[in-house]
């Protein structure tokens, strides 16, 4: 207790409310909190839909059907979820270390650009090798951009929030030049569309389950989640990442090179985000354009937070949000709800989930004192 608190004249005490951490956290309680958050978030969303003048029941059933109502819908949702899971995981890795990287957006672009460079460089390799090389180049692209921010932080004490945000702009404008008049611009048309030409089929990420929409990228997302989980919970590096997040001073006092750990964190985070870029361009869009990648990184921050900064929670959050964005189209078509309500609903759900996270960790106690 600081002396400043002691000197503050206490108001006439009746009942005071204090927030205390829960010592023994029960999984059931945590689950109940998240369930309540989901229901409350949906209720608020329903209100929003209602104010837009649409039929709430109809809108929600359209949303649900569009998201998970059929095999086709599920596949479309999982395809939408793929990059979100990956950028979410990139957030998890960085934020668990309390490295506040906002660079996922730029790293997605860097991943896509790295992969496209690989596509140009290694054309002619046997298909399996070709795709592997492209994926690897994408991973490297994201990792390099991540490492850059970490090196700036380590060497020159540059705040990572600022450096990553600035690099997001740099990389987006670099791509804009490359595909809007620069060397990667589609040459066959007379009008510049801000895109490359179509990517040859040999370089496409192979489809999963026969359908065209779900591709190898989804498998990458699941494997990445598993890798992130194992690294964070089961390895010395993960120990260092978590310790860095909780108390970097003690970690440094006991012989761990913090600068090196931060660089590793950002390489890992950037690599995973880069994979999201590869997956979108070579699995879904099949040509490199800016608007396909737009906002994936920033949404990933939300997904990672909703997932409780846990890899498996992030997969779940990614799938829910993939479903939302894929169902939004149906909702718009079938219930005449503006599609722009979907990001608003995502925002509402994020708020209620963050509240649930706090409710799961803390409790409110009433302290009674008489005057």
């Amino acid at each position, binding site marked *: 207790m600081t002396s400043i608190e002691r000197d503050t004249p206490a108001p006439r005490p009746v009942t005071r409310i204090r927030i205390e951490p829960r010592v023994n956290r029960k999984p059931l309680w945590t689950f109940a909190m998240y369930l309540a958050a989901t229901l409350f978030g949906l209720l608020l969303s329903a209100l929003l839909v209602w104010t837009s003048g649409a039929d709430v029941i109809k809108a929600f059933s359209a949303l649900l059907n569009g998201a998970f109502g059929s095999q086709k819908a599920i596949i479309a949702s999982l395809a939408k979820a793929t990059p979100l899971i990956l950028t979410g995981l990139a957030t998890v890795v960085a934020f668990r270390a309390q490295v506040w990287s906002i660079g996922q957006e730029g790293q997605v672009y860097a991943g896509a650009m790295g992969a496209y460079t690989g596509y140009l460089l290694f054309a002619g390799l046997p298909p399996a090798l070709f795709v592997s090389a492209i994926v690897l180049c994408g991973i490297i692209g994201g990792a390099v951009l991540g490492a850059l921010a970490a090196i700036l932080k380590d060497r020159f004490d540059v705040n990572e929030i600022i450096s990553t945000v600035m690099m997001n702009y740099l990389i987006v404008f670099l791509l804009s030049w490359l595909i809007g008049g620069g060397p990667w611009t589609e040459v066959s048309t007379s009008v510049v569309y801000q895109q490359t030409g179509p990517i040859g089929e040999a370089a496409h990420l192979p489809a999963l389950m026969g359908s065209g929409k779900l591709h190898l990228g989804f498998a990458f997302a699941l494997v990445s989640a598993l890798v992130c989980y194992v690294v964070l919970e089961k390895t010395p590096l993960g120990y*260092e990442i978590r310790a860095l997040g909780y108390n970097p001073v003690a970690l*440094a006092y006991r012989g761990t090179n913090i600068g090196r750990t931060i660089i590793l964190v950002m390489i890992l985070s950037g690599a995973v985000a880069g994979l999201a870029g590869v997956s979108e361009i070579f699995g879904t869009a099949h040509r490199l354009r800016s608007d396909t990648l737009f906002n994936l990184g920033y949404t990933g921050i939300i997904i990672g937070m909703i997932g409780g900064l846990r890899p498996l929670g992030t997969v779940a959050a990614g799938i829910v949000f993939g479903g939302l964005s894929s169902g939004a189209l149906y909702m718009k078509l079938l219930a005449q709800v503006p599609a722009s309500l979907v990001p608003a609903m995502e925002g509402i759900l994020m708020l209620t989930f963050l509240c649930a996270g706090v409710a799961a960790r803390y409790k409110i106690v009433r302290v009674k004192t008489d005057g």
Partner: protein
Amino acid sequence: MTTILRTVNLTKRFPGVIANEDVNFDLQKGEIHCLFGENGAGKSTLSSCLFGFYQPEGGSLELNGEPVKFRSPRDAIHAGIGMVHQHFVLVPDFTVLENIVVGTHEHGWQLGLDEARKRVASLCREYEIDLEPDALVRDLAVGQQQWVEILKALYLGAKVLILDEPSAVLTPEESIRLFRIISHMKELGLSIILISHKMVEVMQSDRVTVLRKGKVVGTVCPDEVTPKELTRMMVGRDIELRVVRDRSNKEAAKEPVLVVGGLSYRDTRDNLMLDQVTLTIGRGEILGLAGVSGNGQKELFEVLSGIIVPGSGNVTLAGERIEGLPSRHYMDRGVGLVPDDRFREGLIPEFGIQENMILGWQRHDDYTQGPFLNHKQIGTIAEGLIDEFRIKAPSADTPVNHLSGGNAQKVILAREFVHSNKLLLANQPTRGLDLGVIEYVYKQIIAKRDEGYAVLLASEELEDLLNLSDRIAVISGGRITGVVDPENTSIEEIGLLMAGERKEAAE
């Protein structure tokens, strides 16, 4: 004598804890009354109730025989009670006078400095306090800042003064001057409540109320009891630090483990924190480091454990020059570190005990299996250490921020003992711990010395250093002002060295 302040069956509870139970305490006019007890015994709670910061749940408070209720410190101040906190509440860039006047609102919106100056001057004369009213507080020594706090209370008309561990931040010399002022105040009719756990100060008071686990054990006059009896009242059993006193093997101590020569270090603001420090610690020897905190101890420990790089000088460990190498190398060469801020520098508070047991050694072969942490092995080793060091915790997974200070310190000791073999650096290892745990920590350190470790031990408790050390180095302003033999050196002599007087022909 008349009773000025009295509590009758005062009880104060916090969720799950009874901090004060049926406390009966009385303060006579013109006495120094010491509240004596271990950390968590309820001294601070009781004084906070007297000062109106807490409101007791049961019992009553009487001032001059009339029942009173203080709803806030403001009420207590109006009733003539003043408190000097352990950590000062002063504005460094204000003058002494401004600090005294701030917040009094005597003249409404005006400061009324001229009138205040006269009153402060007369208070200084009356209580023989030597302070320049226009000096900036940040230019004052810590001891003088404390006088400002006392003046502040007197200015507000305090007749009862509560001093919370007043000597914790002072040199022995400054403590003596403080006690001179206190006894003068007493002669002038003020009543003083002194919160302390230092025997020297307890023995200087008129009466002592001993608290243990929130209850009053008894109120005694210091002339009628021995320090030993008082300690027993406080702890509930006998504690004898001197039992473990048994000097090291002088022959072994001649074999140097750590040799430090001409070490200097400037911090990022270019303050010279270490100035030509030269030290040697031998095998099986405890070198005590005495000094007022903030005189370079922390920097010395950080240099000697590889956390910061010295500007010049050399560090030789077992014949090998290692200055400037990263902390990893020091750890690998058998250097253990018990840092003074245990939760910030020694532990990951959110991690469990077992994870903290391997902090710094998470990549060691003993704790890994291939690329993975061997959680099973770590758990087994941690449970062994929890038993060995008698750490009280529900399980090996319990986060250390749920542990008491003593148990958290034992986690650090266990980890550093297991992973070192040559040199133990212990900076304030017993700060804030209960006497029982202090005794345990010292016994462990002595056991390591007997195993042949070289030990550097810094403590603010000079008595403890005199008891435990084979030699004592005194640091002041980043310089070693002397290295003395505890067998024939008095606390006063060490006090002079702590105040910066250099011992001629040291060593």
